[in-house]
């Protein structure tokens, strides 16, 4: 039986973590490569890097990070942020990442999803979706709307329609981020997670807001997600990945327990 995945997400700017990650003994590590290696050793099932560098110079630095990560960790990892062309995708994959993720770039230019899937296979293409809860309307029948720019810009796209669209375009996976839940640590948006998971045939990664393992268990069971993205819960040393997995396993969630 396929295990549910626990995936730490690291934000990188100019080759450094945007927030230092606190490990045991409060050792603050700003190096994404070393941090990824530690999470790999601790049993992360996959790692997501989100590059928030704006400059093209920074992009070269990120490729260097990807290359170093690929030589140190032997699990899949993905890279997102600033990828807008098939050439951008190719560069990241050649540097050693398994997957690339596109978010606002796909909203602005949906062809990037089909072009990427045709060039590298669907399994390489993750579409990130930032979603906000809105009143149900004719354009947004699900009551969930796609937003970009950190939730500041509403795109007039229904989240459920968009999920089905990207699947049809060839996305291999959806990373679903609830802007409402993000950072609140109150838990994933379960209704949204379940709505999308039940209506697409590709895996859904639940993202946005889990400060304790219980909401993750909910997202993976009631929400029917295939994976849970985690950030501050592990970065600030509140829980370790083995603790989270042990909790999930105790709740009857099948996770990878030997690594």
């Amino acid at each position, binding site marked *: 039986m396929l295990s549910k995945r626990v995936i730490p997400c690291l934000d990188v700017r100019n080759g450094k973590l945007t927030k230092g990650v606190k490990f045991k003994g409060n050792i603050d590590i700003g190096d994404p490569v070393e941090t990824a290696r530690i999470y790999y050793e601790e049993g992360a099932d996959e790692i997501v890097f989100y590059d928030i560098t704006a400059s093209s110079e920074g992009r070269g630095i990120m490729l260097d990070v990807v290359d170093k990560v*690929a030589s140190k960790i032997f699990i899949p990892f993905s890279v997102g942020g600033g990828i807008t062309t098939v050439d951008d995708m190719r560069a990241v994959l050649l540097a050693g990442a398994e997957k690339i993720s596109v978010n606002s770039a796909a909203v602005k230019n949906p062809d990037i999803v089909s072009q990427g899937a045709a060039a590298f296979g669907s399994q390489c293409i993750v579409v990130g979706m930032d979603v906000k809860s809105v009143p149900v309307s004719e354009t947004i029948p699900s009551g969930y709307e796609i937003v970009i720019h950190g939730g500041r810009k509403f795109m007039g796209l229904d989240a459920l329609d968009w999920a089905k669209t990207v699947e049809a375009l060839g996305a291999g996976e959806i990373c679903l981020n609830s802007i409402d839940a993000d950072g609140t640590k109150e838990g994933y948006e379960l209704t949204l997670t379940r709505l999308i998971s039940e209506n697409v045939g590709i895996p859904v990664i639940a993202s946005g807001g889990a400060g304790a393992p219980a909401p993750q268990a909910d997202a993976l069971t009631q929400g029917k997600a295939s994976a849970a993205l985690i950030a501050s819960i592990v970065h600030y040393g509140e829980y370790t990945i083995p603790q989270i997995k042990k909790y999930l396993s105790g709740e009857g969630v099948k996770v990878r327990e030997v690594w």
Partner: protein
Amino acid sequence: MLAILDYKAGNQTSVRRALDHLGIPCRITNDPDQLASSLGIIFPGVGAAGQAMDELTRTGLDTLLKRQVDAGKPLLGICVGCQILLDYSPENDTKALGIIPGECLMFNRALRDEDGAPIRVPHMGWNRLSLEKPCEILDGIEPEAEFYFVHSYYPNPDPAFVLATTSYGVRFCSLHGRPGLWAVQFHPEKSGRPGLKLLSNFYEYCRRLGHAQ
């Protein structure tokens, strides 16, 4: 020295990085002499079976691979490299290498997982192996260990060649072959410590055989 077969449908660099990490000497190559003089060949693959076979036949590597296997050279096929060792794949209606009898099948989306939900295709993520026959490349790996899979088609070899199976809506063959000729549907180079152990077991087998010869 292990040879990692160089052809356009491969994920050669991931395999090379894993072997480098293990300190196993290796070379990415399609040179017949280098393949012949290697201790063993790793035959990687991502992408579609059709493209992979086209590339192998265009370059003549198909015949070369068969000859090496016939001559007793150890071979490890990975993912698409595992599938096209069989006779046929319905992916792109592909006549494959025919080194191991059998064919590939596609996951049926109507299948249901243990929770009763329809399976998602591709089968992507971590899953266990259930051993059907003793298999030395799994030596020292815990039975609960999991491996990383990404695929929509799976091998269905002659039952005599099934070494391990995995459950995903259906129980399918995830490791097939015989001593010295192994094919894994999962990616050992992306499966953490158990995957690295499998690669080093393969190398140790090749070394022992090399010394014996």
